[in-house]
């Protein structure tokens, strides 16, 4: 398959070459005709789809060969059927989880950005509270979740708080690092220009921190979905987390897998939204 495509490609390239062969000086030009962005996107999509197809084929064949019972691992066909027949259930449970993750993600990230700015500007506050932040960070979410459910009840609040907590730490750590990532020459440049601390912050540090910030926001966006789902396990009657518990206890394995697909799509959508935002904001980074 692969060699086949390459051969066709070369043939096309050679065709181009003979057309342009009249000019002998273009010795250094690449042999292949440059691909348009669309062509390269299609090419990427092709391999990704092929990867999925192979994975599903392997999944199905293992079930067939080893005779795995459907309630342990459902065949892909059953999961597909559940995705269709249980769509309404899945969709209505995705909405609360999405609200919790997005809400938590925004609160957590915003809090982290504000705290990072405070930490970078005040060494005393940073010295006092950074250790506490690091200690809290080491507590696993699954351990904090019950505490928060006890404190905040069974509603939306504990889920949002857990999603916020899980988004908070990577963003805080990265943002502090980003704000401090200024190189000595830039600092000297701003000093020669007699720039104020405020100007150094708004015209240098903020920009330097943006690539760091987006790297952590991408992590936080998917982590916030994990946070919301875990929080729903502890105590909830709606949301993808609740649906996972329900499907597991009722041995509805196909529904369980379909729920995982929905959770994964939710995380991917959030990730893609942040990646898109990054492309719009951080335009100066070389591709």
């Amino acid at each position, binding site marked *: 398959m692969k060699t086949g495509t390459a051969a066709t490609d070369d043939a096309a390239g050679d065709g181009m070459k003979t057309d342009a062969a009249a000019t002998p000086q273009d010795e250094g030009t690449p042999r292949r005709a440059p691909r348009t962005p669309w062509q390269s996107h299609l090419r990427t999509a092709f391999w990704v789809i092929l990867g999925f197809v192979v994975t599903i084929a392997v999944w199905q064949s293992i079930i067939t060969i080893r005779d795995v019972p459907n309630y342990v691992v459902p065949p892909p066909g059953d999961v597909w059927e559940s995705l269709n027949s249980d769509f309404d259930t899945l969709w209505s449970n995705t909405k609360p989880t999405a609200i919790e993750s997005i809400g938590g993600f925004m609160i957590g990230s915003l809090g982290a950005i504000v705290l990072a700015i405070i930490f970078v500007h005040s060494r005393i506050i940073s010295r006092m509270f950074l250790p506490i932040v690091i200690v809290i960070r080491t507590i696993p979410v699954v351990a904090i979740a019950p505490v928060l459910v006890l404190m905040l009840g069974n509603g939306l609040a504990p889920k949002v708080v857990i999603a916020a907590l899980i988004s908070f730490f990577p963003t805080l750590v990265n943002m502090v690092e980003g704000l401090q990532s200024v190189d000595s020459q*830039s600092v*000297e*440049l701003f*000093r020669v*220009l*007699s720039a104020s601390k405020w*100007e150094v912050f708004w*015209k240098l540090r903020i920009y330097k921190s943006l690539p760091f910030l987006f790297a952590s926001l991408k992590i936080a966006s998917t982590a916030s979905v994990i946070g919301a789902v875990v929080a729903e396990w502890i105590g909830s009657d709606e949301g993808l987390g609740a649906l996972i518990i329900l499907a597991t206890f009722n041995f509805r394995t196909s529904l369980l897998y379909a729920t995982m697909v929905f959770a994964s799509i939710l995380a991917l959508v959030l990730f893609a939204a942040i990646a898109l935002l990054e492309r719009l904001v951080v335009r*100066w980074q070389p591709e």
Partner: protein
Amino acid sequence: MISDQLTDSRDAQAAIEVANATVRFNTDQGEVTALQDLSVEIGVGQLATVIGPSGCGKSTLLRLIADLLAPTAGNVAVFGAPSHRARKARRLGFVFQDAALLPWRTAIRNVELPLEVGGGASGGRPHRDPGELLDLVGLNGRHHAYPQELSGGMRQRVSIARALVTQPQVLLMDEPFGALDAITRGRLNVELLNIWAKTATTIVFVTHSIDEAVFLGQRVIVMSANPGRVHREIDVPIGYPRTPDLRESTEFVTIAAQVRRALETA
């Protein structure tokens, strides 16, 4: 005319006066003396080049003049006033080794930076038009390019334009062409001399290259290391405009040899 300028600048008030300056740093390896009891005077409108072995404190000397460093002992005066006053009054321009452009700003926005910070262009402070300056350094048509779209030589041109936008009286250049290829470097040397002729700025130019030091400077300050001090000062009595052919002249070769010998004993 140039010899007039030379004598004039020597007699008149100095643009830069470093008197018995010592700079010590505390490092992990203990105290390091970067500059020891260094005195140097650079006249108004002069172009002086500074050369010396690695670690002789060439960059430290520039940073001392720019008020990026304070002397441990001694005095630094720019136009008769302490160097921090010159810095705050925007009398100093600094060109860094690797351009130090802000990658999120286009060429023109980089040149505009000095007008936006530190009081900027307010209060009737003199400044030049950023667009005109970019044209002057040869970036016509590339005003809106981002630094990563420009070659190393073009980036350094932008950073020179940025340093000139506040109309500084003193331009401090820290091995600005050190990372460029020989051809680009030679071309920028000629262009720097043109800019100097047009702006009448006092320039202190630090370099590693004997050729560059002699080609550009009215005076070559040879420094020696451990601790950094002025080893010798060699005048270059060759008139301007200087062209690349100058490098083949006997005069040039003789002075270059003089500088080389001074460096060997440094």
